[in-house]
């Protein structure tokens, strides 16, 4: 290849005509457009913009031109170089984008494979249901009261107006601790918590007491010796049975939907007088199944109502036993079974599922009942 033209050398090796330069540019542009990736573009750059490219060779010839022609040709070649450089740069950017897209495409995974590397846990629905029911009362300004499961008989029975040998004691088959006359029992109900709440606080008292209770029933589909209740107690000036009804209606509505109410039926509990059974309006059929064999309701058995719990006005004898003057204060109390509520609310058909600890039962509920 010839050295730079320092001296005048009329020999023209490369055609520097406008046509020729335009052709070089056109060829370069075509080649770079044909380049499908960055590697190919590198080849193109070498071929059309490198030291041996036609344009580079042409550039060398400029020195050999007569001075009059140098300026014009120099400008022509310079423009051509700039054009190719820009085009190369643009094409490079295009190809880089393509390359990046390709990399991501190649990283595609099967997004549908299972992702559960660990276990999904859950809380027992009896626990979460007790919390949900408690929260209805928390929102009304109640507190959660507590007491021990192994309880003094005086608290579990005597103070609740269930004297020794009263038939009501045999209504509840009691686990006695140490001996039948030891004075200590596994609490048969959450009601002893009422006694503790009233001994610990002066009225007004508004408490709710969820908890575990015990009776000597054998486990079967509808009985368990260890179960749960929630108890409510309000003691204040001027509380009425209508207030009790309203409180239960509110609970029913919060737990089972707008418009669901309760019904009270006279009954007997030693610690309340008057006493009542609480029925819940069937939240599935809302009574539509009653006398209507065409639309049977499994939840209420076509009764329209579901037995839910017991309630009443706190027996003045109970108030006296805890040092509250029944002439100044009245109170109401109510209680319901959590297992039973879970059965009809969530459709649990067998009590045993709640107590046997099968993982599948808890997992199905997650962290809310």
């Amino acid at each position: 290849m010839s050295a730079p033209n320092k001296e005048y050398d009329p020999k023209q090796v490369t055609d520097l005509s406008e046509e020729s330069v335009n052709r070089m540019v056109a060829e370069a542009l075509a080649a770079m457009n044909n380049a499908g990736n960055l590697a190919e573009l590198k080849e193109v750059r070498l071929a059309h913009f490198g030291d041996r490219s036609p344009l580079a060779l042409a550039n060398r010839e400029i020195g050999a031109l007569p001075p009059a022609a140098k300026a014009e040709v120099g400008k022509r070649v310079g423009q051509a170089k700039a054009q190719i450089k820009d085009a190369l740069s643009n094409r490079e950017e295009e190809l880089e984008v393509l390359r990046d897209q390709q990399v991501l495409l190649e990283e595609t995974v099967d997004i549908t494979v299972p992702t559960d590397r660990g276990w999904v846990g859950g809380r027992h629905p009896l626990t979460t249901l007790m919390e949900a029911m408690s929260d209805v009362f928390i929102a009304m300004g109640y507190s959660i009261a507590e007491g021990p499961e192994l309880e003094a008989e005086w608290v579990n029975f005597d103070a609740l107006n269930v004297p020794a040998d009263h038939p009501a004691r045999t209504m509840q088959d009691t686990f006695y601790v140490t001996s039948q006359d030891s004075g200590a029992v596994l609490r048969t109900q959450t009601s002893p918590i009422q006694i503790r709440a009233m001994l610990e606080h002066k009225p007004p008292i508004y408490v709710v007491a969820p908890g575990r209770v015990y009776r000597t029933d054998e486990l079967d589909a509808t009985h368990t010796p260890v179960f749960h209740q929630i108890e409510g107690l309000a003691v204040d000036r001027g509380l009425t049975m209508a207030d009790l009804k309203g409180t239960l209606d509110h609970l029913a509505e919060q737990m089972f939907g707008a418009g669901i109410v309760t019904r009270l039926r006279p009954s007997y509990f030693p610690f309340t007088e008057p006493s009542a059974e609480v029925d819940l309006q069937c939240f599935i059929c809302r009574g539509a199944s009653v006398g209507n064999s065409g639309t049977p309701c499994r939840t209420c058995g076509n009764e329209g109502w579901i037995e839910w719990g017991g309630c009443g006005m706190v027996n003045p004898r109970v108030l006296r036993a805890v040092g509250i003057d029944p002439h100044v204060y009245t109170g109401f109390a109510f209680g319901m079974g959590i297992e039973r509520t879970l059965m009809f609310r969530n459709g649990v058909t067998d009590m045993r599922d709640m107590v046997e600890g099968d993982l599948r039962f808890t997992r199905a509920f997650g962290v809310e009942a």
Partner: protein
Amino acid sequence: MRIPISWISELTGVTASGREIAEHLIAAGLEVESVQTIGEGLSGDLVVGRVEEIEELTEFKKPIRYCLVDVGADHGGIRGIICGAQNFVVGDLVVVAVPGTILPGGFEISARETYGKVSNGMICSEREMGLGEDHEGILVLPPETASAGANAKPIIGLADEILDIAVTPDRGYALSARGIAREVCIAYKVPFSDPIDRVVHVPAPSGSTKPAECASDDLEACDLFTLSTVVNFNPYAPTPQWMKNRLRDCGMRSVSLAVDITNYVMLESGQPLHAFDLDKLQGTVRAGHPIEGELFETLDHVERTLSASDLVILDDRGTIGLAGVMGGLDAEISDSSTNIALEAAHFDSMAIARSSRKYKLSSEASRRFERGVDRTIAPYAALRAIELMLELGGGEYVGMNAVEAPMQVTVITISNQLPAQIAGMEIPAQQVVDLLTAVGCQVTQESGQLHVAVPSWRPDITDQADLVEEVIRLIGYSNLPSTLPVAPAGRGVTHSQKLRRRVGTALAHAGLSEVLSYPFVGPQDLTALRIPAQDPRRDMPTLANPLSDEQPWLRSSILFTLIPTARRNLGRGHTSIPIFEIGSVFQGGMDTVAIPHMNVEHPPTPEQWSALENALPNQPLHVAAVLIGEAQPAGWWGGARPFDWSDAVDSARILAESCGVTLAVSRGADPIFHPGRCAQLSVTDADGASHVVGAAGELHPAVCESFGLPPRSCAMEINLNAVIKCAPLVMPAPVFSTQPVAKEDLAVVVDQNMDAALVEQALREGAGDLLESVRLFDVYSGPQVGEGKKSLAFALRFRSPDHTLSAEETARVREAALQRATHVCGAVLR
């Protein structure tokens, strides 16, 4: 109490369906559990037949009779009927289902050939007609009940409806037709004519012999005792069918005429009666107390050892009955007793309840006495029974002896406004008076105050509140308004309650599932768990009446009952079992002697209350977890990772962190756990004192084997109360620097049995305040570090609060950390 509607109608004049009457009774507080129709599903004719001829067919496996039965001209005259029962003779009246009749259960009678004869109908048993469960033979009607061909349905009480009422302990009066009829009359607002006011047709005492003498040795426990004497009674006289029907409908069996009459009068009036064979008695019949240790055999053939405090019926020879509960075998009337002494008495309800509970004996009599029987009606009921005896079985009424304590009528004074105040609704004063009067009270008014004399059949009414209930229940609870009281502003859940909820949620989010187990344990459980004899966990409360004698104790640790729950899950095919339980444990046996005896007239004194609280065992809330199988299952990501001891420790850490508490882990020793893989867990309280709160790790291989758990099963148990006690109420904000961090890795070689936690602690102490964090990132043991050694690699981050640390500063702190570790733990730079 079961009662047929026909009886209610007879006493009240109310003719309504069973379902309608049931609705009214439920609204009034008598819980009607079912309404059932006698012989439901039966259609077609049942006729009275007279057995004319019996041919015994002996060629079959069992005795078979071919009977000629006269069913009256209208039903085909004399029919030949095959019958398998043997309890009838020629001349007996039976009930025949003629062909075309459909018996309950859809069984249609047709003439058919069987046992080589044509059987032209069926002679029915009670059960076949849906009357009851009796299937010992066919139903034989008393002689002269009806003539052959008569419609048998009304005779056997078919199509009557039966109410089954669950009577609450306060409503003893509802254990009688009399009591139920009164409620029906109140509900239907019709006048009630009390059956005991009916004139009883008994001739004046004959005086031919002296009536049996009676006495009460304990006029408090037995305040009324009557003994009536009937002689020359015909013991073979049959019980009329109408009475049999009523006994059957009320759920009682027909025994003999005399016994049936005592039961019938009890059902009618609510007064239990007891008939003795006069010829088996010696001397005065008394209510009183036996000699301590006396042996006495009750009617159920059980011999019982009596105590002197029991209330019994005695004669000169000793105990002849457990008063108000059950008679004795010796003086009982038999099928052939002709001379009868009839006891009608009133007993203290608590005394009867005590006997019934003590001897685990519940009878029709005890159920009534313990709920309270009308104090006044014993003499009436005795005469009513005698009326029936003389009418149905003949005999001679000799006379009645009686002893009685003075009777107190309960009078309660009540404001006529009180029911309205308690109900929260308007109740006119006159309505209060009217309703109390309907119940049977005698009410006198005195300027707004009512003096209410309680009727003798309502011993349950003792307080103002009882009268309030009577008024409101009869107005109807359905009429109560619904109002919502406004409680004072509340404080929400307490900090402790909030943390308890959060702990469960944290463990659930960590993949564990909450389960509940029964807290009952026994000696073999503790052996399987390797709990040594002197372990304090063996000190547990004991149940006097456990469900199973093998598990008489209340758990002192949740793992005692959670590990068996894990085993149950294994049995159900689960292979990976991450479970936890939050529950009470019971620490220490009971010193029940320390529980003070307290009455209910006054609240406990502070001394009594604290004695009571101290007598109860400590019952903290614990959390336990069992981890079995895979922490992470095999998947496209790689192989499975099994649960190991570190997962157990970490579950405890998650629990503590969710309470804002940092858990310290040190080497522990608990016989349930693997001796080399047991962590002791501690927390630090606000005063800086450290408390051991639990243990975690791998279960001892012997424990796994005993319970059939896979090897290397892991567990954790922690005292949640103790953790919560250390939980901060307010979390202090962190102070951190924004200067650049300097990172240094430091690998040291220590003895194999050196705890990483101690080395880390030494590094922290040595590095001082510039140390931001330290984290163990590698543990290595092998030939490169030498026999009995291990290498621990820590990543340390240093940061100054106010400037960029220079290389020299960083090196100096790193060196200080290392020196401390060398000094305390013998660590050598690797």
